[in-house]
């Protein structure tokens, strides 16, 4: 790597020039790094200002730049000048001058805040190791430029789409598939609901097409009959232990995509649907197998092999229900799937009575509408009604329900009843307690205390992976982060498709591509010299050493009479943005507060708080936007221990959960701590750190 050439660019626009002593800031930057190139412009974001920086890049005068201007959350594209240029943004505009009262300018608080802000930003360019002043290059998670593949767990349609997207982006992907072939659940189906106009009939599953594309791609490796048995590490250097038929192997991966698909809801638990007692009551997935067995011929029912003459599709079986043991969610695909499956029958014999019993038919978009019309055209009957029960007669299942249009109860015997049961995402813990004992009706190998396994054995291998708490411990522990697609509680592990939410094929395949992009973030950001930040903001927050280096740059007041400073550890996505919003509205917190990004793990937060007190901060405020869960509980626990360990008043630490909408309130939260700390006075641990 060529020698590091640093430069600091000061912007004097947006009040910065008037309210700050830029020359004094230049001097302080020279104090940090005597060799630094210092430039100034009245509007850095103007074409002229940017050309100033571009000129330096072209002449080789700069490789690492500190831009002392507005918040890093503004003008990101403007200052993304060159891929090779490593940029640190000193937030002087929102972080310091905007909203700061004029009297702070007079008493020097504004200037001291700006000095710290600049020093903290510059610290990220050097990443000074503890106890030394020797600059080192920013740490990059991937050692020596070795590029590890992306691990895709699950070789279904989602996993294959994800792997293809990764490979098409020029990175290697490894698919680990538990079963002996690719395609997952879709490979066990006869056809799929139409994905292309005119949406009028059943399409080929597309498994063969996607499989051959995956197999032909030189950047994709497929491991069949394999499973991930252990996973450790972090973005850029995960290590996965993969068990194949005859061997175990351990390899490094940059990121992990969990595309483990879904498992079927155990229909045995739905007693009123008669699944337990009647072999001719089956699930949608089981019908696919019947249809495949029929091979375009007449479809025969399981009990006696008779050709099916009448079939009832019961929508929302055990779903969208408030009954105990049933689910309140909707799987999203089953209405379309039932239309498709009714067409299986109509296509062999248009006279077969195919009735779909529904309470709301969800066929969204023109695709759904057109497919519904195609079903109507083929003579599928749709009955709006309320399901009561399925009982068993000598002839087969008898369904009782209320037809709400005719306003009457109907009791009708069918040759076959198909239940639209739920898909359960494998990345989430099971929604209800494990199944009760079930009689061995369908399967000779069925044992009472092993119903899930037996069902899986019957339906191919719907659960294609071992319980995820074993294989992917991070995902099973905590539900995925709400609001952030693909994100899990663990950076670098992303979920895709029906592993995380019930969805149809089109959504799942698109989701696979999205997850691939998300999974590529860690290696790609690492390549540009940044640590990976899971929320997509390059706040360099995950590297706790870097944040410690930043906080040590703060020049704190000496002497016992000066009111102590406080450190604010702000959630890097929401809370830092909220502070920018507050500054924009002229709401500012005390000039004695210094803001740094909050690291992602409780351990790092705890370490940082220790360092803050050792450096001399009088208090620490942790402001986050995390959903309630294990992370927050662990953080609260870790912070609760610190006062006792350091012999400090517990009031010196505050922990707040906010949302972006709370931005007007956040300065108040900070000021409350500042005034509390002012009352308490300086704390005794300051100066105990070796600087």
């Amino acid at each position, binding site marked *: 790597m060529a020698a590091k050439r640093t430069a600091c660019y000061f912007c004097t626009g947006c009040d910065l020039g008037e309210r700050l002593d830029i020359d004094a800031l230049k001097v302080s930057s020279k104090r940090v790094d005597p060799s630094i190139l210092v430039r100034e412009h009245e509007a850095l974001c103007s074409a002229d200002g940017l050309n100033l920086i571009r000129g330096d890049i072209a002449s080789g005068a700069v490789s690492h730049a500190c831009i002392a201007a507005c918040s890093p959350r503004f003008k990101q594209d403007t200052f993304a000048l060159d891929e090779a240029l490593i940029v640190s943004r000193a937030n002087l505009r929102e972080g310091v001058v905007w909203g700061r009262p004029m009297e702070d300018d007079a008493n020097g608080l504004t200037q001291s805040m700006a000095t710290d802000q600049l020093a903290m930003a510059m610290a990220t360019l050097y990443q000074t190791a503890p106890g030394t002043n020797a600059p080192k290059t920013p740490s990059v998670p991937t050692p020596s430029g070795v590029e590890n593949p992306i691990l895709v767990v699950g070789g279904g349609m989602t996993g294959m789409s994800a792997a293809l997207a990764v490979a098409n982006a020029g990175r290697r992907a490894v698919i680990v598939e538990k079963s002996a072939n690719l395609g997952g659940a879709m490979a066990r189906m006869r056809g799929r609901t139409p994905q292309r106009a005119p949406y009028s009939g059943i399409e080929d599953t597309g498994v063969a097409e996607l499989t051959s594309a995956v197999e032909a791609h030189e950047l994709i490796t497929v491991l069949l009959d394999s499973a991930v048995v252990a996973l450790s590490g972090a973005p850029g250097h995960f290590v996965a232990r993969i068990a194949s038929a005859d061997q175990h192997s351990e390899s490094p991966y940059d990121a992990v995509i969990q595309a483990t698909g879904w498992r079927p809801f155990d229909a045995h638990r739905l007693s009123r649907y008669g699944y337990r007692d009647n072999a001719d009551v089956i699930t949608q997935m089981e019908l696919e197998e019947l249809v495949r067995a029929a091979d375009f011929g007449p479809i025969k029912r399981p009990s006696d092999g008779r050709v099916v003459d009448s079939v009832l599709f019961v929508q929302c079986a055990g779903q969208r229900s408030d009954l105990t043991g049933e689910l309140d969610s909707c799987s999203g695909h089953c209405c379309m799937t039932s239309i498709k499956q009714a067409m299986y029958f109509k296509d062999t014999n248009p006279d077969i*009575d195919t009735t779909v019993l529904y309470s709301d038919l969800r066929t969204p978009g023109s695709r759904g509408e057109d497919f519904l019309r195609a079903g109507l*055209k083929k*003579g599928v*009957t*749709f009955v709006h009604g309320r399901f009561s029960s399925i009982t068993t*007669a000598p*002839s087969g299942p*008898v369904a009782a329900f209320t*037809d709400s249009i005719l306003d009457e109860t109907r009791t009708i015997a069918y040759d076959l009843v198909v239940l639209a049961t739920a898909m359960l995402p494998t990345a989430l813990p099971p929604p209800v307690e494990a199944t009760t004992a079930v009689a061995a009706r369908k399967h000779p190998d069925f044992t009472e205390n092993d119903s899930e396994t037996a069902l899986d054995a019957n339906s191919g291998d719907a659960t294609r992976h071992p319980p995820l708490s074993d294989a992917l411990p991070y995902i099973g522990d905590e539900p995925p982060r709400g609001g952030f697609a693909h994100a899990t509680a663990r950076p670098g592990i992303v979920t895709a498709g029906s592993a995380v939410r019930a969805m149809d094929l089109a959504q799942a395949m698109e989701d696979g591509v999205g997850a691939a992009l998300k999974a590529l973030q860690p290696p790609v950001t690492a390549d540009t010299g940044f640590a990976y930040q899971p929320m997509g903001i390059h706040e360099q927050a995950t590297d706790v050493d870097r944040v410690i280096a930043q906080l040590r740059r703060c020049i704190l007041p000496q002497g016992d009479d000066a009111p102590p400073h406080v450190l604010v550890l702000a959630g890097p996505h929401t809370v830092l943005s909220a502070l920018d919003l507050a500054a924009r509205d002229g709401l500012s917190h005390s000039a004695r507060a210094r803001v740094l990004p909050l690291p992602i793990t409780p351990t790092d937060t705890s370490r940082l708080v220790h360092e803050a007190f050792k450096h001399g901060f009088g208090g620490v405020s942790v402001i986050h936007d995390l959903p309630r869960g294990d992370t927050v509980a662990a953080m609260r626990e870790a912070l609760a221990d610190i006062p006792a360990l350091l012999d400090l008043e517990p009031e010196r630490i505050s922990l707040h959960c906010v949302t972006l909408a709370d931005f007007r309130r956040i300065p108040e939260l900070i000021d409350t701590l500042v005034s509390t700390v002012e009352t308490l006075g300086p704390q005794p641990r300051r100066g105990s750190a070796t600087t």
Partner: protein
Amino acid sequence: MNTTASQGDTPATTKGYGNAFLHEVENRVGQGEWLKMCTQCGACAGACPTTDSGGSGTHGGHSPQSLFMMIRAGQRSDVLGSETLWNCMSCSDCAVLCPSRIPVADIIQGLAFYAESQGLAPRQHPNRVLAMAFWENVEKHGRVNEAELGMRLNFRAGFGPGVAHSLAIKDIALKLIKANRLTPLALGSLVGLNVGHTGIRAKAELRAILAKARALEKARDEGENGD
């Protein structure tokens, strides 16, 4: 379709949603092939001025939505015997509002015609009585003889009630006569005198046309029944 009789503890079953009656309607009722496209949205039921949505209430009868579902449920005699078919005024609000563009009013009219042909129409429904009297009248004269039609309807329940009804509405009749809208001479047709109302000239040709149409219709229906 399974229609199993009640036996022992087996639940009594009703007829399923087969397509037999639907196919019959598709084949025998004008525009009937559209019926299967109904999504049961209920727009027609909400629009219909002669029935209440849901099929019961002050207006009674079955909404087009209910009728279509009854057809899918194979309730043949209930559909063809429904008074709704004769209450329809052909306002076509249903067809205008139908998101599936089903010619609902045309199908209702077609069902009424088919019900009549199957002998399942409600015989005493006043609209049916009027319709049949009107048709008879037009077939006889080639165009309507209003005096004769009115008199026939007045006396449909017998001589006594006919006289009583005629007296009750005599003021209206007199006003119509004064305004030259009705001529009592036309009643001559009742005794074979074509004086006030002569009808069309080519009555024989009209009858021949109608006879041919009936023959064609019969041939069509027999052909369909044959396969």
